[in-house]
């Protein structure tokens, strides 16, 4: 897993290697200073001015080198870590672009967003820690211990007491606090979820006068949460005092035994040596604490790393054939004994035994209840999913034999859950055809009954669409999406329930315009309401994943029970609305 992740370092390998090298230099110089001061002190006591000058200059030099190395390491480290995270984001984004619909279904939108943002951030932080601190701390530890022994061969024995105490203390804290924290964070998520529910359902809360009830519920949960947090924090609160305890004990013991040595003159130790030892003991214990922090950080970021790799490793379920066909002859569509399931191991077919032939240029209506398989059926035409059994042909050729890009250019789909992107209306329309002239744009918009409302905006075609199309109504959004699809100049155009929010009058005009303007294009209209399909050349009635009947409106009213039932029950007033549901 880690290996997969590290593959994204690429051009920042240089920085990733340079950082530890400069860190080594920085630490090496830094630990020299207390040693030099010790020697400096020796000269001072002996009144050796020249020695003092040499050691003094050496100290300045070490500090200078350490400073420069530290600054370089800081820069390379930043570049390595942010570059790494840049590449990670790029790699994930690129891989997602290659996702098939089946892949997209597997990850939810919000989970993909979290993976690309929060998770990458966590990994970046951890990476920065690893190449910087994870090198620095152990080095500091080892160097400091070595130097201490150099200054005095006996005094560092004190560390044999304090280091294990600190190490065991830290392990104890991590072991006990981490599980509680993990539990608490889950509770915290639940708390936030209930807040979210309340914000969304505020009208319900108020309509049922449940303000006090909700507040009481919230009080209980947050009280509970605080209790758990306190439990965990109490353990964590040991950390600082523990560190101070170990440091202070080392200090006292060094000062005591050091004084004894100086007085008894058994070793070549002076007061400067004593301060140097104190500095080293501080560095030793600090580096130990840093190591524990790194450990916690890395454990926490492992989950993020796993989630990132999951995206990176996801392989598209659809691939182009070799020597794929790059032209689509016409808009004939053929389904031969098609069965379809979303998952290989799913028990039930979504579509069963579909046989259907549609001639080029015809208008076909598909009608049926939710879950009857209408969307699944049309999704097979532009090979958004692969059939499980049987074959789908467009222009007489199996869709699997086409180059996917060519197929999708020629089979335009106006999706049920459609979106516009932030940008001007023009920019959004040009998704259909990058080189479309303004005249072409206007023509398509007129066909989609969008021209009129677009020109009513002060900025017309240059009106800026906010993220998610928040500043246009549902019906307007749908019409823009239709215009966008028309601009592709497709051989087949599929409307997947894509006029649900358009009022009946406009819907009728739109259908008429498309029928007359695009006579050679096969038009497939998936709809909930009969009115949208009743004048189609042929209507397909679906139920439970099967085609129940095929025929014209009049024929079906005679022959199909389901069609009749739908016709009568669906005679509802939703058509009064310009923007039916806000879905």
């Amino acid at each position, binding site marked *: 897993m880690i290996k997969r992740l590290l593959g994204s370092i690429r051009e920042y390998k240089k920085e990733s290697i340079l950082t530890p090298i400069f860190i080594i230099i920085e630490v090496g110089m830094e630990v020299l200073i207390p040693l030099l001061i010790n020697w400096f002190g020796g000269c*001072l006591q002996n009144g050796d001015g020249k020695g003092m000058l040499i050691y003094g200059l050496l*100290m300045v030099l070490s500090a200078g080198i350490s400073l420069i190395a530290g600054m370089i390491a800081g820069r390379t480290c930043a570049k390595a870590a942010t*570059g790494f995270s840049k590449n990670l984001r790029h790699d994930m984004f690129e891989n997602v672009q290659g996702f098939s619909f089946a892949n997209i279904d597997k990850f939810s939108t919000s989970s993909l967003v979290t993976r690309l943002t929060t998770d990458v951030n966590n990994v970046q932080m951890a990476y920065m820690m690893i190449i910087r601190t994870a090198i620095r701390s152990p080095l500091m530890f080892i160097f400091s211990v070595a130097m201490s022994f150099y200054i005095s061969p006996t005094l560092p024995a004190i560390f044999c007491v304090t280091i294990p105490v600190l190490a065991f203390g830290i392990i104890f804290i991590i072991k006990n606090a981490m599980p509680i924290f993990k539990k608490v964070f889950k509770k915290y998520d639940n708390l936030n979820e209930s807040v979210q529910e309340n*914000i969304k359902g505020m009208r319900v809360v108020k309509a049922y006068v449940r303000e006090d009830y909700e507040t009481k519920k919230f009080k209980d949960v947050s009280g509970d949460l605080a209790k758990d947090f306190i439990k965990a924090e109490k353990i964590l609160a040991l950390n*600082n005092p523990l560190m101070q305890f170990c440091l202070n004990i080392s200090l006292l013991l060094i*000062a005591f035994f050091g004084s004894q040595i100086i007085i008894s003159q058994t070793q070549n130790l002076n007061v400067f040596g004593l301060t140097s030892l104190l500095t080293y003991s501080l560095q030793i214990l600090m580096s130990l604490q840093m190591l524990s922090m790194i450990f916690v950080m890395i454990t926490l970021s492992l989950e993020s790393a796993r989630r990132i790799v999951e995206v990176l490793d996801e392989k598209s379920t659809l691939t182009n054939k070799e020597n794929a066909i790059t032209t689509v002859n016409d808009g004939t569509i053929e389904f031969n004994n098609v069965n379809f399931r979303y998952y290989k191991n799913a028990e039930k077919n979504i579509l069963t035994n579909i046989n259907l032939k549609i001639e080029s240029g015809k208008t076909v209506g598909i009608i049926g*209840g939710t879950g009857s398989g209408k969307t699944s059926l049309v999704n097979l035409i532009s090979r958004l999913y692969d059939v499980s059994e049987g074959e789908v042909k467009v222009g007489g050729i199996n869709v699997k034999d086409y180059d996917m890009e060519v197929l999708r250019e020629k089979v335009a789909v106006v999706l049920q859950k459609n979106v516009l992107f932030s940008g001007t209306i023009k920019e959004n329309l040009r998704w259909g055809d990058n080189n479309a002239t303004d005249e072409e744009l206007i023509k398509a918009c007129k066909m989609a009954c969008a021209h009129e409302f677009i020109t009513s905006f002060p900025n017309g075609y240059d009106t800026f669409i906010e993220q998610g199309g928040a500043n246009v109504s*549902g019906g307007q959004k749908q019409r823009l999406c239709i215009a966008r699809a028309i601009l592709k100049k497709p051989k087949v155009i599929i409307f997947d329930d894509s006029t649900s929010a358009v009022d009946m009058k406009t819907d009728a005009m739109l259908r008429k315009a498309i029928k007359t303007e695009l006579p050679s294009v096969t038009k497939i209209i998936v709809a909930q309401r009969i009115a949208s399909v009743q004048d189609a050349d042929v209507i397909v009635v679906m139920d439970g994943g099967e085609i129940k009947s095929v025929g014209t409106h009049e024929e079906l009213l005679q022959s199909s029970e389901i069609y009749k039932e739908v016709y009568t029950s669906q005679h509802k007033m939703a058509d009064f609305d310009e923007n039916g549901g806000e879905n």
Partner: protein
Amino acid sequence: MAKMSNSFKPPMGKGSMGKGPMKKGIKNLDFKALFRILGILFKEYKASYVIVLCSVMISAVASSVGGLFLNQVYTALENFLAGTPYEETWKIIITALATLGFIYLINIVFSYTFNVLGAILTQRFLRDMRIKLFSRMQKLPIKYFDTHTHGDIMSTYTNDIDALRQLVSQSMPQLLSTVITLVTLTFVMLYISVILFLVVVLGLIFITFVTKLVGGNSAKYFMAQQRAVAKAEGYIEESMAGQKVIKVFCHEDESLEKFDALNDELFNVSNKANAFSNILMPIIHNIGNILYVVIAFLGGGIVILTQGTGINISIQNLVLNGSLVGVMNIATVVSFLGLARRFANTTGMVSNQINSVVMAVAGSNRIFELLDEKPEEDNGYVTLVKAIKLEDGTYQESTDDTGIWVWKHPHKEDGSVTYTELKGDVRLTDVDFGYEENHIVLHGVTLYAEPGQKVAFVGATGAGKTTITNLINRFYDIADGKIRYDGININKIKKADLRRSLGIVLQDVSLFSGTIMDNIRYGKLDATDEECINAAKLANAHDFITRLPEGYNTYITGDGANFSQGQRQLLSIARAAVKNAPAMILDEATSSIDTRTELLVQKGTNRLMEGRTVFVIAHRLSTVKDADVIMVLDKGRIIERGSHDELIKQKGTYYRLYTGNFAE
């Protein structure tokens, strides 16, 4: 996510993307929030907060004065070499170390006190702030939720509360500790040597200068980084949500290209920001080291050149010898080394700590903004009470479930009380309304519904149907005109009681985490299981519920995302049914549900409407046909009214809508 906005929906607040404390910028920050937080802490957590602060200070002092006693040890050792007897030297050393040990003990005790008490205090404080936020939010008018995106409100509970935690548990105590440490160290240094202290001060000025140079820039880059993050995240959100469209239009390459541009920009600024903050530590640290060397050299130089008779001015001399001027010796220099380094490092932290306080205050500001929002006003005094009907036709209040509810209307002038039975008679007279003061969207709406009557609203989205229903339960207050409920002006009725008398089924169903039973019982908290099941039966929800493996105990999470739209609607009807209010507001769902569930929903709604006064925003022909009166709305005005047959005869808008004949 935020609802769609159009001319008739209230305006939407801007800046849903705003995340983290950077949104408002740091410049025009007022520190009122900081004072308010301190106010709350001192007032509501008096004792423990004072203890926490004292512990921080004591611990800071205790950890800084150690140098004084080490100085004694060094001096003693120095003097020993110069000839002081062995016993005397040890006595001094032992005394100094014992004192030091005692001070360390104090330090540890108070450090532990601060850490534990601080953590407890922080968590309690956060809990209380959360509860305050939540209970204030519950009291805010609907308008607040119209003008603020859900994401923004949510971020108060997550990001801003986290900023508050940071402030109370880390930034403030750390800053306090730093200040106390610096002050203590200053005294300790002055005590040992004024001359060397001056050297340190010079170094300090230099450090401050450098940190400002580096730190100032780093803040600029962090701001830029925040903006780049927001931009990139916005694009990521948009692309991930529209991934299927990207595929359908084969727009993968363009989309990646655009992302790469944003990604590179993010890399550039965040590289710089991180580089700056990364080099800050080595700079501070090594300037500390250089300062260390300078003092060693300077001090040592004086000692050597003067052969241990160099001049040292210090308080210590004043205390011990009665004169400020004394001898500069090795011990003085050695003691100073550690102190100077500590002083330099601590100083380097100050600007960072101030920064983090400022950032945290920015976040907390938004918490107070929400807390300061004006709650929904309610001057109503007419309440809804249970009563029994006496033989003379008057009512008497009762505590029993009599099935009769009456409006209790106290009259201030003569102190008398009138009781009016709750029947569900609603009248609107010349009602004008606008979501914003200058923008009236309902004009002169007059209508009445007698008990048991069904009023259907018909018209295009934005015609004002939902707005009218929102006025009846006083989600919003009218600008002009009158609304009377059972003859009482609804402004006089307590909002809670008014809403208790009205059932409501919204088109957009909201469910809450909990079992199905809990969700139905939401309509009437003291309803028995049986009542809930009966309500579910009436709503036609019973069948699908019992088919679930855990039946009524099925746990709903994530707003019931695993239930179909139709099932959610059935639950919402059951919830309204258990409430059993005499008047109902019903927004028929238009979202596509399959034919069978549609029939179930339709039957459920019909049963719910029986015998009640109903305002229904109608989408179904059957509903409209059954209505006693249909109001056809257009641009905030009632343009036609009457029964189905009457309106058909009129051959007006309703007729055209009904027949789908748009040519006329």
